């Protein structure tokens, strides 16, 4: 409480603080996901060296699963690239992020989101969006998120 008060006295308002916290949270999440990937990669390399495989199942891997995994990977990569571009743009301009003046998404998506209680596209929380998309298949979720990303609704 005291530190908050001191920061407020120093001129930072709660809105700036929460935005900062959100940014920090996003960065931590990204770092954690990167860390998980690194661990998986290291485990894979280690198993390659030792010849040990933790689990093998003599059932054929479903082609659809592999295809969806590839799509998800591609989508994640695209999101990461776009995020990096946005960050780079912000750093170069040294200005506050420019909010897209017009956010257009397909009518079907808008209707679906409205049904799930997301009526405004100005500020969509990640948690609310995930909850709204819960009933959809992985492919559909990727498609909706990509549309929202293109429209600049989610960062």
């Amino acid at each position, binding site marked *: 409480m005291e530190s908050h008060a001191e920061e407020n006295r120093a001129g930072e308002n709660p809105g700036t603080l929460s935005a900062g916290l959100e940014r920090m949270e996003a960065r931590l999440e990204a770092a954690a996901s990167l860390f998980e990937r690194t661990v998986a990669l290291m485990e894979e390399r280690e*198993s*390659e060296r030792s*010849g*040990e*495989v*933790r*689990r*093998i*199942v*003599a*059932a*054929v*891997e*479903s082609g659809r699963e592999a295809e969806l995994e590839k799509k998800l990977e591609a989508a994640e990569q695209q999101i990461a690239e776009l995020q990096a571009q946005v960050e780079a743009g912000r750093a170069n301009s040294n200005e506050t992020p420019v909010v897209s003046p017009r956010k257009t998404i397909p009518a079907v998506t808008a209707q679906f989101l409205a049904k799930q209680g997301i009526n405004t596209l100005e500020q969509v929380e990640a948690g609310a969006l995930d909850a709204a998309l819960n009933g959809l298949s992985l492919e559909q979720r990727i498609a909706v998120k990509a549309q929202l990303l293109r429209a600049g609704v989610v960062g």
Partner: protein
Amino acid sequence: MKLEAMAVHLPDVADHPNRAPFTGVLTLVDEPSTKAPSGARGHRVILTRAAALAALPSLLGMAVDYAPSWDGHDARRKCGIITEADVSGTRLRVSGYLYSKDFPEVERQMRQCSAGTMGMSWELADAHVEDMRADIWTLTRATFTGAAILLRNKAAYRNTSFELGSTRCRNLIAQAAPRSHRTVREEALRTTDGRKEETWNHMQRKTGQARILAR
């Protein structure tokens, strides 16, 4: 042909309502899989005979499971148990029981599908691959952690099989044959009665001895 076998003996219970015997070919040894198994990073695999024999004890008592779409494993749907395994030629054959009363849908599927439709798949843990850069991985050590019943074309080894034993025939045989065996209940009663008789005789002897000593 050399046969290496191992079994867990379960007591016979005639007409057990929840046991449907099955037999199957779980895998082939010393032969490459038809397709790459899941978890083998796209490589086909060869389970060596030595590795399979060494892993036989780990297979006994393991469960057989199934996925509702019959295309893979679901370790949370354990519908039976493997009680016997043997390697005969290149075939690793297993037998055991399905929990037919608990999983009627599995028994129904097995009885309804045409012969040769269903196959089996193993699940291995801590497998050792001789050379991970090889086109076909050679598994030289592994532990069986379970098996699944699935459509034959979804198994990495195409020549696996799964068949339910004919329980009807077994019942008919049991009815037709003279009753030379005792049921578990009869055996238990017989044993209890025997024990009571022994105790009674012992008490009688002791009482008799005490009387003689008193005289």
